């Protein structure tokens, strides 16, 4: 199902949680709402579900106006951050709940049983049907919550920080599993997260939000490699930020000229160059333009790549991430003065 959000605004007292949001959720896609806490992403999700209502604006489900429809009429599946499993019911009863409370077209006992068994299999919890939520691990609870939401065959699946309450390892497993599940079930899904890695790994498209507004919408590649704003650049992974001025299409970072590869922006006295740690290289010799002297402060080789922290002449800390091969070639020592160079960068006016 396709969802259109048009000019949605939601104030909470003096605070504007959502400010004139426009968004299209494509049929069958897995969309991530990404942003720091308080950016309005959960409010948007709850408004999509009908648990909350916007003050102005419209929501269309497949072109049909759903703005004033209540949560029951919308037929959405919602997975809560803390699962919200019914604590007095077994796993089986939790999943069957949505089918049992149906007023019209309630399936027969046997059909309910078959459907629940099928869902238990889908989330790989066949053996735990008679357990209570308190007897399950966090990851298992999350899967029960998902099965329960899917039981009513919702038109859309909405997930609020689905992995937020899990430890790192389970989190990674479960998000890959969710991706595979989505490829199987192909239900239009929207999930909220503050973890950029999670959004970039799982989603078909990412909506980056900040202070009640959408900063950028795009595929993970687009938002990561072509951030539309300083906020997106800063929020999606670590970034080094250099103050500069731009003169005749060239950026000057403390008088060191930087060649700009993208279309050169207009001249400006105040602008910023954004460079991700992995876009920086470390060299023993001065390598022409885009090269700054800096002294090594820390080297961490414990990881897939080597993190190097350097200090520029004007006292700014710079993070670089280089390969182990490169580390062996350059052999940076703490205290040594080397040169950092970059080929890729992003420039935004202040």
């Amino acid at each position, binding site marked *: 199902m396709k969802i259109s959000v048009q000019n949605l605004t939601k104030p909470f007292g003096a605070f504007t949680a959502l400010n004139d949001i426009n968004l299209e959720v494509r049929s069958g896609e897995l969309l991530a709402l990404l942003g720091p806490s308080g950016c309005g992403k959960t409010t948007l999700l709850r408004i999509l579900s009908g648990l909350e209502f916007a003050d102005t604006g419209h929501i269309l489900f497949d072109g049909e106006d759903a703005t004033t429809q209540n949560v029951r009429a919308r037929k959405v599946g919602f997975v809560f951050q803390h699962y919200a499993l019914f604590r007095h019911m077994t796993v089986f009863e939790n999943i069957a709940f949505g089918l049992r409370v149906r007023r019209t077209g309630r399936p027969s006992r046997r059909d309910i049983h078959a459907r629940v068994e099928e869902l238990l299999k889908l989330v790989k919890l066949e053996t735990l049907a008679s357990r209570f939520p308190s007897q399950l691990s966090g990851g298992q609870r999350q899967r029960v919550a998902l099965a329960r939401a899917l039981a*009513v065959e919702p038109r859309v699946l909405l997930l609020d920080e689905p992995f937020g309450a899990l430890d790192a390892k389970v989190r990674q497993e479960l998000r890959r599993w969710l991706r595979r599940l989505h490829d199987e079930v192909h239900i239009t899904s929207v999930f909220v997260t503050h973890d950029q890695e999670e959004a970039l790994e799982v989603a078909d498209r990412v909506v980056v939000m900040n202070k009640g507004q959408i900063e950028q919408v795009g595929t993970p590649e687009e938002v990561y490699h072509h951030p539309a704003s300083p906020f997106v650049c800063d929020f999606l992974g670590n970034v080094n930020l250099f103050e500069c001025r731009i003169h005749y299409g060239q950026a000057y970072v403390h008088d060191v000229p930087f060649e700009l590869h993208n279309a050169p922006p207009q001249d400006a006295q105040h602008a910023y160059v954004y460079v991700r740690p992995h876009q920086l290289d470390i060299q023993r010799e001065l390598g022409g333009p885009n090269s700054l002297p800096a002294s090594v402060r820390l080297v961490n080789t414990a990881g897939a790549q080597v993190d190097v922290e350097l200090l520029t002449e004007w006292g700014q800390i710079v993070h670089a991430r280089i390969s182990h091969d490169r580390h062996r070639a350059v052999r940076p020592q703490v205290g040594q003065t080397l040169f950092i160079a970059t080929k890729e960068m992003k420039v935004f006016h202040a």
Partner: protein
Amino acid sequence: MTPQQIAERATTEPRWIRWTLIALALAFLALFVGLPLAAVFVSALSKGWAVYFAAITEPVAWAAIKLTLLTAAIAVPLNLVFGVAAAWAIAKFEFRGKQVLITLIDLPFSVSPVVSGLIYVLIFGLQGWLGPWLQDHDITIIFAVPGIVLATVFVTFPFVARELIPLMIAQGTEEEEAALTLGASGWQTFWRVTVPNIKWGLLYGVILCNARAMGEFGAVSVVSGHIRGLTNTMTLHVEILYNEYQTAAAFAVASLLTLLALVTLAAKSAVEWRVRQQLKAARHSHDEDLLT
């Protein structure tokens, strides 16, 4: 040694202090609770079982017992509904004046029962605000059963609400929201999700409410008028018998109230244990989510 054992050592007093404190507490309990409790039954049976049964089966006593049961039968269900509604509103919604409502619910605890009774006399009594109107329409409230019920309802209304508010706040609203997203109606959500989650707390509140409804003296005394066989509850009947020097009879009726207290206490302890489990479970699942 486990950390718990170390902690115990650090905060434990020498043995003789412990035993002295325990002995003091026990002696105090024996003197002020055990002894009077025993005295009630000893005095009640001082003139034998025949007098005992006569005292509690005579028509006037029987009328008092029935009135007490009737009052409780009205007051407890009313306060059950009110308590659930108030706790629901306070725990599940944000609104202006919430603190005021919580304070108002506690009012009967902080006001002397005599004052509670007088309030009703001032409103419904012959010289009260609504007195003339009520007289014109031939309705008697004060010095009649309605007044007794009203005063009892007022005095006992905090019990259920007070018990449910912390429980419902700890449990939050997510389960109800989940039920709604799964297509349940408001009623289905209430009966299938909310009630099972609060049932032990609710029962506990009802037990306390009932005990107070049957045992209330002050407020009821003011509005009752002490008409034998008509407006005397058990507590008032005990007082009258006692004032008339019918000690054995007075204690016989009093022993019924005492038995009620003992049953209440036993039921209360059993239910209290379940409530603690429920509250712990609610907080635990919440904490776990916050920690991980």
